[in-house]
């Protein structure tokens, strides 16, 4: 069910893949310890318990190609987890809230990413600005649109995928004042990264997304007038999951779609920004 995000396996056999995997994991540990710039192929070889020559046999271009493989693997894992969360959601609002929270959990909880953002931010940020941001948006649109198209016409599903990607990236790179930085492990406040991400998603989705999605829902090409018409962000219509597997729960019996929407916005979170 995660075939949306996982690229076809390389044809070089299990043994080769496991060697590559070992090197990638060793590289990841080294990056988390010393950063990308200071990690050498020797460091990676030593950590993986293999010779330098073996590393080069798997990755003839050395460190840069290992870095690419690390990024690929992290990205695939990210989308695998996201796909699981998204597939388990039974409505658009839930999908968006859980998906964005999951994305923030992964990004804020990734220790290597946190290390790099602190010590070599350019290694991370170059992937999140200008042309690379374009590529990332295009990738997310491709991966996420099929899930969103269960509830929206494909054009709006694609728009929403891009929109959510931008918001996730922006708030992950620089959390807004009204929520503050994600808690680091063992922080004094006792708040967990999961709670932080949930809080962020629970504020952002109802505030900025839902009013617009209410107008979009229904999948027609024309914008419905604001605030009009039936709203069914949960369990609407007769969706068909992108992977052909059914099993989502449609509208709960006896529950009008309007009733399952939050009628009020979170009352406090967005107020914490001091005026001026």
């Amino acid at each position, binding site marked *: 069910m995660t075939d949306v995000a996982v690229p076809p396996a390389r044809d070089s056999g299990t043994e080769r893949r496991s060697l590559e995997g070992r090197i990638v994991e060793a590289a990841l540990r080294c990056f988390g310890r010393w950063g990308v710039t200071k990690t050498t192929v020797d460091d990676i070889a030593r950590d993986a318990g293999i010779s330098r020559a073996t590393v080069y046999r798997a990755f003839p271009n050395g460190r840069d190609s290992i870095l690419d493989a690390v990024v690929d693997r992290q990205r695939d894992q990210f989308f695998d987890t996201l796909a699981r969360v998204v597939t388990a959601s039974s409505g658009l609002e839930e999908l968006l809230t859980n998906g964005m929270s999951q994305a923030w959990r992964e990004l804020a909880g990734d220790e290597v990413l946190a290390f790099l953002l602190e010590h070599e*931010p*350019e*290694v991370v*940020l*170059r992937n999140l*600005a*200008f*042309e690379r*941001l*374009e590529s990332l*948006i*295009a990738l997310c*649109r491709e991966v996420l649109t099929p899930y969103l198209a269960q509830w929206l016409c494909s054009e709006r599903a*694609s*728009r929403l995928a*891009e*929109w959510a990607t*931008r*918001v996730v*990236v*922006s*708030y992950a*790179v*620089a959390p*807004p*004042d*009204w929520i503050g930085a994600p808690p680091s492990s063992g922080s004094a406040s006792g708040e967990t990264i999961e709670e932080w991400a949930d809080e962020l998603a629970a504020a952002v989705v109802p*505030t*900025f*997304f*839902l*009013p*617009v999605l209410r*107008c*979009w829902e229904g999948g027609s090409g024309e*914008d419905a007038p*604001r605030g009009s018409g039936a709203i069914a962000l949960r369990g609407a219509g007769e969706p068909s999951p992108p992977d052909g597997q059914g099993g989502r729960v449609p509208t709960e019996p006896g529950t009008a779609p309007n009733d399952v929407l939050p009628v*009020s*916005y*979170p*009352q*406090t*979170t*967005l*107020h*914490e*920004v*001091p*005026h*001026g």
Partner: protein
Amino acid sequence: MSDDVREKILEATYGCIARVGLAKTTVEEAARLSGLSRATVYRYFPGGKDELVRAAVAWEAQRFFARLATDVSGAGDISALIEAALMRGQEAVEGHEVLQKVLHTEPDVLMRQLTVEGTRILGLIRGFLTPFLAQVPLPESVSAPAAADYVARMILSHIMAPGSWDLTDREQVHELVATQILGWISV
């Protein structure tokens, strides 16, 4: 220390970056171009080359957004203002020769500068937008600065990477602003 001298040094440094890039810009060259001594440049920028380059990037980023703010300030309402900011902003990013050159030749060096600067730029746009958003009826739970923060993020994101939106197309920009950027407010 005078602001004029500081400005002169930054302008010379920026000219230097435009010609040779971020990495090859030196205190010596900035001093030569501004007609000042090395010692004077160091007096204004004790951190030397790194501080000088960072300050010059910040200086141009602020000028960039000041120009943008001037360009859009005549817009009639908040929607027109943001539409103009997106169109002019993206145009200005694409037409910014030094930015485009450095993006292609030294993306990592630029990103290192923009890490700190990015947060400040976000703050600048937020500060610019807050009074405008204070005049529109926001949902009860959202303060004007929090609203401006969201809108600033969306503007920055789109002028850096327009994605599927054609920001030269007035109708598309109108749709983008009416939905994703301001659709949550009853403007």
